[in-house]
């Protein structure tokens, strides 16, 4: 019993144990040779990745139903672990260059990934809470890892305070749901609620719980109006941290949201669809519109990240419609994967640009990149086109699937509004291309082999996978099938 439970979450256990081991080993690794720590980290991630892939075809339940290993968790965990590797890649040279060779950096990253994995395994509200905390606390530290820089400190403190504030929301929400159903088990809630309290009391509690949860998780995934922290944090934190965060924290947040929505809140009475629709609409509009006013790339990408959260949420809006659920989840997962590739690519470039104290990441700083480093600029252009959703990039298929889901669920107006905001987004994404290719300048780019590799790998993936989207679609669909 205990053994089989442990086996179920073996990748997670391994990662955590490994993180502690690395933390210890790191004590004996001198400052100039943190490459060893990085390598160890990658090894740990790779082993966990292999283990996760091996789980792919054996869905199980463990820890008295608190943990679920299914296609959903496998898909996301692969994403997290791969992101971890990419995160190390974009961090390594940056940390050396900025004199931030702290071994614990990588360890914190591992812990954070462990938290994200925990969320994807979660079948119980308390696991979700634990996962979110395990994900977030290391991130608070990572955001402030550039201690000497005021902006890093500020972003860290803001993230910490507001993150905790949101955690309080989540916790409070969980408490109400517990009150409504007498259980914290996601699946159990569905069955428990009708015969828990008297129905007159259960409904308000359920709704209150749902509301607090949506608000709290909404903070983690940064949807309007719970998004305000994100631009500041993204801008202030060191670029590789932000890049890592933008993928893992976002995906984990959505994983939590999906688990809660699709398992616990599918009851008719607890329908939060209109709330989600309103939030999605607001998010798409605000994220995209405000992004065009930005002159700092990191901030622009932060708003872009907010906007993308809006698109993702749009696909989840018709979550209570059983006919669309499968597409909802599959499209969101697919989009997350495409988003991960794109986002890492874009942030990797910024890690090469950044000079500390948010220097070097202005739009004007990349002027002339097309001339100086055409390949890199071309790759970044692919990212931007993918973000925009231009065909022959994976981003197009991602958006295609999301919008299709929204229309399938009957939310044509939301899809149309979303499409129009895409237009707004085209403006600021294209500005990057304009800057790189059409304007003259002398960009100060500190070349990094590993970061460049991430960029090219991402660009290549975005284009090549666009020709064979069925591979990714297949995986995403499979993840959904096993979710049930």
């Amino acid at each position, binding site marked *: 019993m205990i053994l089989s439970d442990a086996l179920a979450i073996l990748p997670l256990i391994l990662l955590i144990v490994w993180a502690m081991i690395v933390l210890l080993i790191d004590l004996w690794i001198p400052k100039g040779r943190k490459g060893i720590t990085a390598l160890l980290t990658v090894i740990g991630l790779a082993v966990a990745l292999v283990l996760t892939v091996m789980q792919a075809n054996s869905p199980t339940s463990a820890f008295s139903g608190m943990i679920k290993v299914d296609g959903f968790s496998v898909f996301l965990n692969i994403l997290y672990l791969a992101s971890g590797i990419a995160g190390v890649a974009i961090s390594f040279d940056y940390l050396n260059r900025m004199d931030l060779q702290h071994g614990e950096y990588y360890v914190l990253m591992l812990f954070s990934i462990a938290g994200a994995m925990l969320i994807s395994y979660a079948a119980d509200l*308390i696991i979700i*809470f*634990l996962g979110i*905390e395990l994900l977030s*606390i290391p991130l*608070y*530290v990572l955001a*402030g890892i550039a*201690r*000497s820089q*005021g*902006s890093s*400190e*500020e*972003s*860290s*403190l*803001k993230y*910490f*305070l507001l993150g*905790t*504030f949101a*955690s*309080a929301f989540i*916790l*409070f929400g*969980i*408490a*109400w749901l*517990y*009150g409504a159903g*007498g*259980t*914290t088990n996601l699946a159990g809630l569905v069955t428990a609620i009708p015969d828990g309290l008297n129905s007159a009391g259960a409904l308000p509690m359920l709704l209150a719980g749902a509301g607090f949860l949506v608000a709290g998780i909404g903070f983690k995934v940064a949807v309007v109006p719970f998004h305000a922290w994100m*631009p*500041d*944090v993204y*801008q*202030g934190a060191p670029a590789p941290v932000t890049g890592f965060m933008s993928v893992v924290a976002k995906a984990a947040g959505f994983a939590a949201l999906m688990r809660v929505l699709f398992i616990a809140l599918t009851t008719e009475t607890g329908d939060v669809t209109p709330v989600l629709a309103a939030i999605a609409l607001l998010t798409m509009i605000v994220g995209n519109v405000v992004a065009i*006013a*930005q002159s700092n790339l990191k*901030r622009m990408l932060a708003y872009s990240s907010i906007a993308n959260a809006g698109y993702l949420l749009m696909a989840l809006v018709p979550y209570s419609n059983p006919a669309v659920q499968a597409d909802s989840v599959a499209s969101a997962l697919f989009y997350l994967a495409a988003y991960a590739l794109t986002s890492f690519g874009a942030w990797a470039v910024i890690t090469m640009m950044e000079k500390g104290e*948010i220097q070097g990441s202005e739009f004007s700083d990349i002027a002339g990149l097309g001339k100086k480093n055409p390949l890199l600029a071309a790759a970044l252009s692919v990212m931007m086109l993918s973000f925009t959703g231009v065909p022959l990039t994976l981003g197009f298929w991602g958006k295609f699937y999301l919008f299709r889901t929204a229309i399938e669920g009957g939310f044509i107006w939301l899809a149309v509004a979303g499409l129009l905001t895409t237009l707004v987004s085209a403006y600021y994404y294209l500005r990057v291309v304009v800057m790189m290719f059409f304007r003259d300048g002398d960009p100060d780019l500190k070349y990094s082999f590993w970061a460049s590799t991430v960029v090219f790998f991402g660009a290549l993936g975005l284009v090549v996978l666009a020709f064979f989207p069925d591979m990714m679609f297949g995986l995403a669909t499979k993840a959904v099938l096993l979710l049930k």
Partner: protein
Amino acid sequence: MSGIPLVYYLGLAVILFSLGAAGVLIRKNALVVFMSLELMFNSANLLFITFSNYYKALDGQILVIFVLATAAAEVAVGLALMVAIFRSKGSIDLDQMNKLKG
């Protein structure tokens, strides 16, 4: 405890939560804000205990333990952060923390 109706507990929890939230909104010392956040956490804990008692189930109480543990972790990180900031800036006044905006 049995004499006091459930609603009183719930009401108290809501009041505590609101107090905490209000504290976050109006205080500018990061430490005080953090204390307010702890208050919000504990209002949730109160709810857990209450419902645990109501359902005569233990899992609510176990949950509270978990929460306390995580809260402790947060305290550790948060205080360290504030110390670091106090060292470099000489203040943990949140109103001075607005270099990043827009």
